[in-house]
């Protein structure tokens, strides 16, 4: 269960880093890089689910649910961070 949650959190971090590649200097190139990295993130997620399905099928539901939960918890934390008021300098 913990493994799924940790992996979900790592994948959320990966998705966040990939989106950070989109900059005003090179928006198109950044988009391509972000898309490629997110594709990789998705493949890792599907691959891990596949591995659990093949080798520990009984743990599939718990692993999948914790993977999604871990991802969403990190996403919500970032969302709340983005909502925080920033002081103008």
């Amino acid at each position, binding site marked *: 269960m913990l493994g799924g949650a940790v992996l979900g959190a790592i994948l959320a971090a990966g998705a966040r880093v990939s989106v950070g590649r989109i900059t005003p200097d090179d928006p198109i190139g950044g988009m391509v890089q972000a898309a490629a990295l997110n594709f990789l993130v998705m493949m890792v997620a599907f691959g891990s689910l596949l591995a659990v399905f*093949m080798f520990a099928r009984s743990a599939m539901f718990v692993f999948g649910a914790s993977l999604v939960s871990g991802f969403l918890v990190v996403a919500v934390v970032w969302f709340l961070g983005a909502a925080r008021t*920033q002081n103008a300098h």
Partner: protein
Amino acid sequence: MEMIGEGVKELLHELSVLTVAGHKVEAGQFVLTNYAFFLLIAFVVTVLFFMIGVRKVSLVPNSRLGSMIEMGVEFVRDSLCIESMGPEGKKYVPFIGTIFFYVLFNNLIGLIPGFKPGTGSMGTTVTWAVLIFIVYNAIGIKKHGLWGYLKSFWPKGVAAPIAAFVALLEIVSQMVRPLTLSVRLYANMYAGHVVLGIFSIFTVMLIEASGVMKIMAVLPIALQVVLYALELFVAVIQAYIFAVLTSVYIGGALNTH
């Protein structure tokens, strides 16, 4: 194999009743379905998103989320309302904005594994489309009066038989609008959800097969990732189409010729 059959049955059963610990969630004659449940989830998420985002409103947004929400609202105001209805459109920003963001959140929530899009149920989209039909006709009648609004269906400057035919076509096209508006959104979201589910089931079938077929499971997994990206695009586009058509219908009712 039996599990796969059950999976397909569940996938195609649009209005499965939601059960919590083996019990139906019901109030009198109303039973909560899976889709209705996720519709409520999307409602809560949409409200929370905007409540958190606009907690401390200032002329210049002072948070990243605030800036994002301002961009979204500006998009609704400029690209959806003013573009379709002219300056009068500003009045309808709350209505169109609510439609756009609620449909968007519903569509996006359906992409989370295990979740369903609230818009993937025909009952939901038909209700919204009928409501929109009533609203835009009421707006037209309020602005032009009942007779003036009805007269707008009759084209000017053409022979009476042609005008009658055009008026008939116009009335039919008006009557069909709730159906087209609702089926477009429902079919896209439901079909997308089913396609993703079918590919998952297909993957399971290949893994459970023997020999080379097991290795072939990599293909549907890769395709699943591509389909997810496509569904993400469809989720945003369908929300935009639903909102832009609503704006166009209201614009048509406001600016009759």
